[in-house]
């Protein structure tokens, strides 16, 4: 059997929300709503003003911070420029230094290997890959081979055996290669003593700084 509600519709108990707004007129709702909306608008305006003040403060802070940054950068800029310029110059110096020849080492080596009773008359050494085409002003020495080789010496020895010794010893120098006797001629000087004039040429690979003895 199905249960039947015998009460008329107006006498039946209402739902939870049936009483809400029962006594409120649209005019009252409009008034209350208007007041609440106005309050919200005011609140939003207040928050807006507050946020604007924050923005304004941060603008001011940013301006101050940027001014400080500019001041600090003004101090740092010349230092950075100096550092950059230093690095560029140091790089150029290092690059040039790689091509510098340790001439004192060459002369020292040469003096060490030259035997007794042998004297040099001339010496001409030109570094390969020279930086600038600087040309010595002196005229080429007679008996010295033209610059087909970069290392040439002429000299006089007491005997041909001494010249051979010079050739042997020059060949031992690490910065000389293809040591070649160009000329050898016996001559008598003004004092009447006999000597052997020689001319020797060689390939020249001069030692660079940091190689060999200081």
């Amino acid at each position, binding site marked *: 059997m199905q249960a039947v509600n015998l009460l008329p519709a107006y006498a039946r108990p209402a739902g939870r929300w049936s009483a809400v707004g029962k006594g409120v007129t649209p005019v009252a709702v409009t008034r209350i709503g208007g007041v609440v909306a106005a309050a*919200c608008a005011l609140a939003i305006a207040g928050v807006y003003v507050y946020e604007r003040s924050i923005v304004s403060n941060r603008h001011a802070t940013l301006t101050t911070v940027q001014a400080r940054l500019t001041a600090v950068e003004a101090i740092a800029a010349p230092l950075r420029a100096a550092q950059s310029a230093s690095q560029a110059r140091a790089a*150029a110096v290092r690059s040039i230094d790689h091509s510098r020849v340790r*001439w*004192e080492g060459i002369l020292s080596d040469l003096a060490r290997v030259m035997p007794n009773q042998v*004297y040099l008359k001339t010496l001409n050494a030109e570094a390969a890959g020279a930086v600038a085409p600087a040309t010595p002003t*002196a005229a080429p020495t007679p008996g010295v081979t033209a610059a087909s080789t970069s290392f040439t010496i002429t000299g006089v020895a007491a005997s041909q055996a001494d010249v051979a010794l010079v050739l042997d010893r020059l060949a031992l120098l690490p910065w000389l290669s293809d040591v070649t006797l160009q000329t050898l001629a016996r001559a008598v000087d003004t004092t009447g003593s006999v000597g052997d004039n020689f001319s020797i040429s060689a390939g020249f690979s001069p030692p660079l700084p940091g190689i060999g003895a200081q």
Partner: protein
Amino acid sequence: MKLISSGRIAALVAVAVILAVVIVGWALLISPQRSKASDLSVQIDNARVQIAATKAYVSSPVAKRSVRDLRRLRRILPDQAEAARILRQLTAAAHTAQVSINTVTPQSVVPAGGAQALPITLTIDGHYFGISTFLHLLRTQVAVHDANVRGKGRLYTVDSVQFLTGSSGTVGTGAQGSASGNTITATIALNAFIFGSAVPGAPSTETTPGATTTS
């Protein structure tokens, strides 16, 4: 029933209007300001970080050293030919090595790597080891150890050395030569260097190419 319904609708409309006011006000007024404030905050933070980094750089040893290094490197590799300084340095080296400089002939500036070379031809008189010392002094005015450049003078390179017969007729080397007292006339082709990009064929501003100084 009709009144209740109208009141409810009015309430719903009022709630909708209030929500609309809040949402529109937030979206159009408050949110952009908050966004701006946030952006400004990021900019301020970035600027502060930059300030801190720059201050750290300024107070760092590298920065403090940079000006001193540049001053020192300008002596080694100057911006100008500075012929007077070259002459002083050559004279000082010659004095120390006990050789005498006969002629100094500067030539036109030529490009050389990251710098410009000022070729100078020197003729000097002296003993074999005096000339060797002179060349040593010129070279050791600047020393490069690892990546460090040190020097009290200018950077020179010597391209060629030519010894001619000295006053006594021979150039002595070795034990006999050094003891014999012979003097040598040596022609030395050296280069002083000027920092900066090369201008091919441009003559030096401070030296007259081809001019010969005799001391």
